[in-house]
């Protein structure tokens, strides 16, 4: 598979994560993105045995353990399967198009111009942030954070492949713990009927 094909896959999957409203399909999209970013980061990490081991642990945490946790939550709480889009389908598609245009403009920023493939990274990161806004089910916040994290991992792979693998491991550990703390809070919020962001409006001003 060529590098360009991988970027095309990343862009399509990130867009689908915003447009789609079924938690399992969105999660599958995240896993596919995480696998692609893992493949892209492999060459930088595999230079030393220690780096390779840390890379493997980070990969298992992000690609296997965190998604299994979310899948387990959705199986236990079938109501969470619907991510409840906060805007109709045409608006969501328009948002994706707007994000594509915005990402293309990133290449013109001073400081970014000389770095490789920044529009793709920007698109994945912006899709992660858009996930937080475009859905009313708070589970989408967690999926958005995972997508956001995948974008940052991709940036690390592209921009600083020599970055110590321990940083990558730290980021993966953070993703994992955030996911499980998030799931614990989600479980309680669900029990209280607070899974919709509209219900989380007690604290204002």
């Amino acid at each position, binding site marked *: 598979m060529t590098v360009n094909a991988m970027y095309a896959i990343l862009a399509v999957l990130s867009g689908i994560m915003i447009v789609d409203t079924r938690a399992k399909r969105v999660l599958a999209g995240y896993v596919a993105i995480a696998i692609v970013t893992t493949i892209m980061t492999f060459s930088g990490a595999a230079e030393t045995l220690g780096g390779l081991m840390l890379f493997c642990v980070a990969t298992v945490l992000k690609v296997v353990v965190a998604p299994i946790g979310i899948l387990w939550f959705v199986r236990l709480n079938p109501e969470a399967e619907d991510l409840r889009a906060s805007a109709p389908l045409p608006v969501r598609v328009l948002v994706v198009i707007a994000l594509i245009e915005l990402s293309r403009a990133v290449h013109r920023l001073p400081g*970014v111009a000389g770095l490789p493939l920044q529009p793709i990274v920007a698109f994945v990161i912006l899709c992660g942030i858009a996930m937080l806004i475009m859905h009313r089910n708070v589970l989408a916040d967690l999926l958005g954070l995972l997508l956001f994290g995948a974008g940052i991992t991709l940036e690390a792979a592209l921009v600083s492949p020599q970055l110590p693998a321990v940083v990558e491991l730290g980021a993966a550990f953070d993703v994992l713990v955030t996911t499980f703390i998030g799931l614990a809070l989600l479980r*309680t919020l669900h029990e209280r009927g607070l899974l919709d962001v509209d219900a989380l409006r007690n*604290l204002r001003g």
Partner: protein
Amino acid sequence: MIAIAVIFPFLGSLISALIPHRDTRRTTRIILAGAATCVPFAIATSVDQLSLLFSVIVSILCFLATVYSTDLFSINWTGGEVFWSRKSVYFILLGAFWSSMLLVVLAQTFGALWFGIASTTLATAFLVGFSGEDAALEAAWKYLVLCSVGIGIALLGIILLANATLHAGATPEFALAWNVIAGLHAAPSPVVHLATALMVIGFGTKAGLFPLHAWLPDAHSKAPAPISGLLSGVLVSCALYAIVRTLGVAESWHDAATLHVLLTWFGACSVFAAGLLMLVQHDLKRLLAYSTVEHAGIVVFALGVGGRLGIAAALLHVIAHAFSKSGAFFVAGITQREAAATGQRGVLWTTTVGGRMLLFGLAALGGLPPFGLFCSEFLVALAAIAAHAWAPLIVVTVGVLVAFGALIRTGLQIDPTVSAQPSVAPAPARRRAATVLSVSSASIALTLAALTSVIPWTGIGKTLASIAGGIQ
């Protein structure tokens, strides 16, 4: 040795949680917390003055929060409505919080510093939602999501910074060490501009700077009082420490002009917005939380103004604010408990111990003499005048005056029961012990807040000037 210093508070909390007998556990907890407070002095030669200064602030206030928390819960406390609302979990998370903040201030690289900042979010998410109330859970959720986005942005900046340092000749293992970066003597680079801006935005989210502050009033007002004190007084200081380190790197790269402008206006807007938002608060802890946004704004404004005086004033403000705000939140907890115990409503400052102490807390935060914030705000104003930063200084001055008015007007009329958390009110049998411990902790914090006003005339003042000279 640094690793031991970092892990010590967490280990201490785990060890004390394993002790079955209640009174022995309580005593052990305080002894181990006291020992952990002394540890930073043992590593004084291994870290620089800035790290040492912040580690001392972290340790003293975490120790006071531990003492305050010792009798926070009722003697027959069986847990709240959620599985993590247990005394043992509370103290273990408090230990983890303490250790993660020490990791932030004792780290030697931006990688470790970032991991420390990320760990503070993870350690405190359950503490914010500790009471199990719907509003507390909402606050914990917002805190987790918004801070995760913020620290993600900071990581993005760190990755870009690594790219710049690697191109400038740093080896991969030291690409993020600030001592190494300072010695690179590389030419200004647009990548460093972008990297440092992203790091300031990311760490600024954790410091609660406007407009990235949305999580802060919720989280700080819904956590138990000692945790609110640490979140506002210490965690925000740790985030500001990360910004100071970022500024240091930008300065060493001779590339800080843009960053100074960003910091100046980031800070000025935070002070002004916080002042306005404080006017409409009806909850004591929420009012104090918005005051944190204001003071974080003053620190960032001072860093933006720059120069030796500006940076030294910013550091002095961080120290004075840490003690003042922690003390004020400790007092807020006492007034809440008194209100819950007596059923009294309305103005408490004329009738109760906590109410009278609240006067001191509000005076400290309002920047009245003899408290340290008076001194630091005066120095910040002098630094801004010296730098001819007139427009942002006017914005900051208006913001500070509005905030002062809101603090006095609202703070003295507020009904503490609005944000009372009955789940953390002690049973009558332990009320006396709880009162002694909490009043002592709050008194020490407020006394230290007053003593910070003499810092400019002491050795610590010279140290601050020396640190500022190193960063500049």
